[in-house]
């Protein structure tokens, strides 16, 4: 088999034993890699119904088909476990040299079982596995941990995925960090912390065998050339944070916990402002010729020294959504999340919920007591220092508020409502427990469906249904009969990229057109040159449907029902008062209609369950046996 080793490594942290599992080629053709393979490994290895923070929840890592090859933006891996936030599939992606090392070490995937009694750092050194004490690493930030491991091993080519204090303290919004990039969402870092796994390091010294090296180099070179052109210019110069002003102009920029869609301070937290006043450099993920990541640095004032990776999704959450127009405070808050190992989006949305609670009298100053402010502090919208301090408190579960917010928005609001008899769930911006992304969906009706039906919860990246709404390919303000098929089509499109995985920013660089017709034939050529298979347009298209289906199947087996495809209360009951999106909500009737036509488009039952014959047609016979209807 080319492109794969055919082997998955199983590591048991409780017994400190390992085993090697061989997988047949048909399995690889079905699940490929990235989030699809990671989710499939999770399907195979989880104790069904387990608590996400119990030993029965495995950490499943799947390499990228193109990691370690010349294919641009292919240096990514996928990770999955049952999410501590949602109780459903928690799948994450990261671009990283860790993905390349994993491939060079000869593993298509790694499954980590059980839990250790003591803090442990695992080293996978080609085909050897070493369990090392991690007591001395506990408390270190993410970059510090990676550096400490490289120094200990005396090898700067060792690549590590690590957690920071947030993961150690089982914050449900903790993530996993590698090379400064993150497997960022759904609380994977808490799963690592529950197993006392501080780090997984890989040293890989083998090559990656591909079927047709000359063809793969030629194809890759052409893509690389295109990736230096106008298709990716926006990413190279401004990065994703240029979306702040775009969304603001459209009335879609989450502001003050999604109470508004237009932020009066947007210019001061925009990508353009960052570029002019705070940009230190741009950096790239592994194998990436685009280099979109803008690094912001604060050089003076109370946050001097802060240096963070600034993406749009981090920025909306930790600026406008908290009402903060101080870019320095936003960079500090993002830096804290990066170093403490925490998802910026979930952190920002959870903090903004707390700020709304404070402004509306649910919380008082003394609820915010911490070592830095023993009497507590004011936490109104716009208070940058409150936002920064809360990121630290969440990571360390410090004080009442830090411990509360470390649970994420859904659990925090439920706890407060029970304790205080309030109805703060109405301000809790999450879907299935995962905090919502940087696009207000009240006037993005296709996207609203994609989010509600998404297996991951409040995630923009797995659905991509914002695309037709925002680009005006449909009327974003209304609902019609095309949206079910559109939501299906966009989520399966995104799933192809998330499975190979390839960064979606390359999507125009195959032929200049980002649609299926423009990209799938070229992706088929890359797959075939790597593996020797004979994939065509249809086979590439199936990758996405299978990837989404295995995740959906996982959720069904964990107890998903139709009511779990929901939207936040606010988006359904509170229209915005100002701006281009004012006056709209997604009504119950609209949402239920959208779900009906989406399930129909997917070929599922009215209850959103998957017929056996559908699963068998996708080559997922064993899944059909368990959850097919």
């Amino acid at each position, binding site marked *: 088999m080319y492109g794969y080793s055919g082997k998955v490594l199983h590591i048991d942290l409780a017994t400190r034993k390992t085993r090697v599992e061989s997988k047949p080629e048909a399995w690889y053709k079905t699940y490929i890699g990235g989030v699809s393979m990671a989710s499939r490994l999770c399907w195979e290895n989880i104790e069904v119904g387990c608590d996400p923070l119990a030993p029965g929840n495995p950490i499943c890592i799947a390499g990228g088909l193109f990691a370690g090859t010349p294919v641009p933006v292919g240096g990514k891996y996928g990770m999955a476990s049952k999410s501590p936030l949602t109780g459903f599939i928690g799948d994450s992606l990261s671009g990283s040299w860790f993905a390349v090392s994993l491939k060079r070490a000869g593993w298509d995937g790694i499954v980590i079982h059980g839990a250790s009694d003591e803090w442990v750092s695992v080293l996978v050194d080609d085909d050897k596995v070493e369990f090392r004490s991690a007591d001395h690493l506990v408390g270190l930030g993410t970059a510090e941990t990676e550096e400490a491991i490289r120094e200990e091993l005396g090898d700067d080519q060792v690549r590590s995925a690590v957690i920071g204090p947030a993961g150690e303290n089982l914050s449900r919004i903790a993530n996993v960090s590698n090379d400064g990039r993150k497997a960022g969402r759904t609380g994977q870092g808490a799963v690592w912390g529950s197993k006392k796994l501080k780090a997984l390091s890989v040293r890989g010294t083998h090559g990656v065998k591909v079927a047709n090296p000359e063809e793969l180099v030629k194809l890759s070179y052409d893509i690389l050339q295109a990736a230096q052109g106008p298709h990716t210019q926006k990413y190279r110069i401004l990065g*994703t944070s*240029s979306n702040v002003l775009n969304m603001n102009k459209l009335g879609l920029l989450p502001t003050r916990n999604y109470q508004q869609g237009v932020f009066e301070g947007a210019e001061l937290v925009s990508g*353009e402002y960052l570029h002019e006043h705070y940009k230190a450099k741009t950096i790239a993920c592994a194998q990436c010729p685009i280099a*979109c990541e803008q690094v912001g640095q604060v050089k003076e004032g109370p946050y001097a020294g802060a240096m963070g990776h600034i993406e749009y999704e981090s920025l909306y959450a930790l600026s406008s959504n908290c009402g903060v127009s101080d870019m320095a405070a936003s960079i500090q808050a993002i830096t804290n999340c990066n170093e403490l190992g925490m998802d910026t989006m979930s952190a920002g949305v959870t903090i903004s919920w707390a700020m709304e609670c404070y402004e509306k009298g649910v919380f008082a100053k003394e609820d915010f007591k911490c070592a830095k402010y023993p009497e507590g502090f004011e936490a109104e919208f716009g208070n940058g220092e409150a936002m920064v301090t809360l990121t630290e408190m969440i990571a360390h579960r410090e004080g009442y508020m830090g411990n509360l917010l470390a649970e994420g928005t859904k659990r925090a609001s439920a706890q407060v409502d029970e304790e205080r008899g309030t109805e703060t769930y109405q301000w809790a911006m999450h879907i299935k427990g995962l905090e919502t992304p940087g696009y207000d969906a009240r006037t993005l009706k296709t996207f609203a469906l994609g989010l509600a039906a998404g297996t991951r919860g409040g995630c923009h990246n797995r659905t991509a249904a914002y695309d037709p709404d925002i680009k005006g390919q449909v009327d974003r303000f209304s609902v019609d009969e095309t949206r079910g098929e559109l939501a299906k089509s966009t989520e399966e499109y995104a799933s192809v990229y998330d499975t190979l995985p390839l960064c979606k*920013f390359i999507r125009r660089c195959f032929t200049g057109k980002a649609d299926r017709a423009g990209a799938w034939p070229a992706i088929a050529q890359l797959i075939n040159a790597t593996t020797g298979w004979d994939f065509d347009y249809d086979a590439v298209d199936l990758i996405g449907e299978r990837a989404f289906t295995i995740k959906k199947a996982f959720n069904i087996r964990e107890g998903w029902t139709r009511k779990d495809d929901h939207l936040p209360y606010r988006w359904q009951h509170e229209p915005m008062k100002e701006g281009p999106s004012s006056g709209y909500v997604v009504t119950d009737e609209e949402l239920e209609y959208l779900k009906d036509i989406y399930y129909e488009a997917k070929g599922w039952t009215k209850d959103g369950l998957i017929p056996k014959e559908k699963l068998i047609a996708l080559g997922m016979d064993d899944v059909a046996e368990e959850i097919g209807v």
Partner: protein
Amino acid sequence: MRVHIEFLGVSRLTTGLKELKLDLETGTTFRDIVRMLGARYPALIGNVIQPDGETLQAPNILNHNARRMVQANQMDDGPGDGDRIILMSMSAGG
């Protein structure tokens, strides 16, 4: 008629402008406006506007009054007096 043009993202960096007011003949189309912008700011050609001088380079797009994204087949429509046109580059994901 008077039309307000706003520049976001790469077009703002390229022109050095946040906003521009244009006095136009009634009947001016969006395509005409792109041509005018290319002529006035040649650095936009190749970066934001394609070499033909009248087609926007994806993912750049015109937005009309914060409501409508002007599609390729709508470039022969035009704005009205007092309208606001935003030149933005849309994308997300990663």
